[in-house]
């Protein structure tokens, strides 16, 4: 396990009666790209602002590189922030903006000049050093904000939805550039976003937040392939979730009873973590296949549910089906249009939806959350 850079212990923030951040424990590893992902109001920005020193925690502690910094004011913390609004100093040139932090640290003039130039080269803004922020585009301003923070070589860089204000094309480009820069400089990046694709593109580790708590922590693959809550399953991509009850567990797979009588197989280790036999199982829409039929041929190694197509929508690279199962669930199924031949399936057809048991995940049953 790598060294911890930022450690949160029981971190809590209340605004009046509202609990924004609820007793979070988190270790953010050194030198990685870490994302706090969640819908608006989940407490991710408040968490970041507490690390930056802009909000005082109601309870709990924050450690940076092993030293507690909970009570330190922002200007004494060895972290720098890239704000969502960029927050560039409008009365200073780009070079003056970038030099601001070095001046505060009393870095001598020659070194300051060199480091400012390096930082601007890193974000490819060298030629625009004498401009003012108002004379630049959003993407350029974002790069200045990044250079202004990175030039100080902080222990950790905090990014508060830094790409939120940019258009889609530029956002995609900057996502790749940000990951590249992070690898180049090796500084810990802590990135706050509500965009699951952005988090999955850039981050090594993602913490999915909901209602002030961390729902699940893991790599993009872990979160997508093995979500542990219905919220994570739905927030990162689409999921089909059905209630199920564990009947037996032996060997590699557990057998569950789901969707009003169907017997399905679920990886045994996924079931083992569940608190009770009453669980929900899930499968991603693109992991399923469809074939015409009424269930005569149900057998073998795959999981299968019978149903009827109630909606079919051609969306270019895939066709998106909604299948109403015999047990009353609606399943979303994506069938890739990889050949010119269409599947020949249409609304009203009786079908069998199949998937590999390995692709089945298990989430806790809980009150249904919106979102």
């Amino acid at each position, binding site marked *: 396990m790598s060294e911890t850079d930022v450690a949160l212990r029981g971190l809590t923030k209340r605004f009046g009666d509202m609990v924004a951040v609820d007793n979070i424990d988190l270790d953010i590893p050194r030198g990685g790209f870490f994302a706090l992902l969640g819908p608006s109001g989940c407490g991710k920005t408040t968490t970041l602002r507490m690390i930056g*020193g802009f909000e005082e925690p109601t309870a709990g502690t924050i450690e940076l590189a092993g030293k507690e910094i909970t009570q330190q*004011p922002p*200007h004494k913390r060895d*972290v720098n922030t890239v704000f969502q609004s960029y*927050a560039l100093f409008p009365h200073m040139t780009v070079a003056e903006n970038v030099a601001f*932090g070095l001046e505060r640290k009393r870095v001598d003039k020659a070194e300051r000049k060199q480091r400012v130039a390096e930082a601007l080269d890193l974000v490819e803004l060298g030629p*625009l050093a004498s401009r003012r922020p108002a*004379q630049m585009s959003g993407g*350029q301003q974002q790069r200045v904000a990044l250079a202004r*923070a990175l030039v100080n070589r902080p222990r950790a860089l905090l990014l508060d939805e830094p790409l939120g204000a940019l258009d889609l094309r530029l956002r995609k480009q900057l996502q790749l550039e940000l990951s590249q820069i992070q690898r180049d400089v090796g500084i810990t990046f802590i990135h706050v976003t509500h965009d699951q694709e952005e988090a999955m593109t850039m981050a090594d580790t993602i913490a999915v937040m909901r209602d002030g708590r961390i729902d699940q922590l893991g790599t993009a693959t872990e979160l997508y392939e093995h979500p542990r809550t219905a919220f994570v399953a739905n927030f990162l991509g689409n999921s089909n979730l059905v209630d199920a009850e564990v009947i037996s567990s032996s060997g590699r797979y557990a057998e569950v009873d789901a969707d009003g009588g169907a017997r399905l197989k679920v990886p045994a280790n996924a079931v083992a973590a569940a608190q009770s036999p009453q669980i929900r199982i899930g499968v991603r829409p693109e992991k399923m296949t469809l074939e015409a039929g009424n269930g005569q041929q149900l057998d073998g190694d795959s999981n299968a549910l019978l149903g009827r197509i109630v909606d079919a929508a051609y969306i270019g690279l895939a066709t998106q089906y909604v299948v109403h199962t015999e047990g009353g669930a609606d399943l979303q199924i994506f069938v890739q249009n990889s050949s010119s031949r269409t599947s020949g399936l249409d609304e009203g057809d009786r079908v069998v939806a199949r998937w590999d048991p390995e692709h089945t995940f298990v989430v806790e049953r809980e009150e249904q959350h919106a979102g």
Partner: protein
Amino acid sequence: MRTPLDRLRDSLLGVWSVGAVVFLFVPIFVIVLFSFNDNQGRFNFTWQGFTLRHWADPFGVEGLQQAFVTSIGLAALTTVIAVILGVCVALALVRHRWRGRGATGGLVFLPLATPEVVLGAALLGWFLTLGFIRGFVTLVIAHVMFTLGYVVITIRARLEGMDVHIEEAAMDLGANQLTTLRKITLPLLAPGIAAASLLSFAISIDDFVVSNFNAGQTVTFPLFVYGASRQGVPPQVNVIATAMLLFVILLMFVNLGFQRRAARRQNRELEPTPALGL
């Protein structure tokens, strides 16, 4: 297609506009004109010929120079105090949360809504009760009181339009609160501070009602003019008024020049650079 009715409406609109401007500017024009009046005797109400003698000797009336200097000093001191206090009040109201914040925000504007006569009389009552000797000091206190509200309104508007994250960014980059105030907040507030200064200076130098209650033996320019008017306003008053008018017009042109230059520079630098398409 323009119909004759459209043309008629346009020409009527022109006449109406000219009329409105004339209505507004005739009194000012009369003041300027009569600063050149070669008046005989105490009165300066009828045109009796052109002269430059009042302009050659603007302070030729006893007490006028003293009153003018008093007014300038009073307005300057009032402005300095009101702007310093006003910036503090505005910062406290916008950037901090504290008990009594809402009440303060409302009460600061109360002097603006109070009739000046009431304000002047009430201040007089207090000064008498507290045993203050009325004079320059009581004038400064009174003027700061009724200009403060304007300063707070102006600075607060500017501060509310300012992204709070800019100040946070400064602190994030290692600036303590004082450095942030000095390097970031105050420079960004500068246009608001300039506007508030001009406003409070103009309101202070113009004030008659409140000053009349609280001046004691001190005579400001408006008080002098009022006193003089009972026996005929000397043309030198018109000279001073005209000079102040010219000064204000000059300031306006200087300001306009700055704005044009800033706009031109911005336009020039906004042209796209071919190397960076972003």
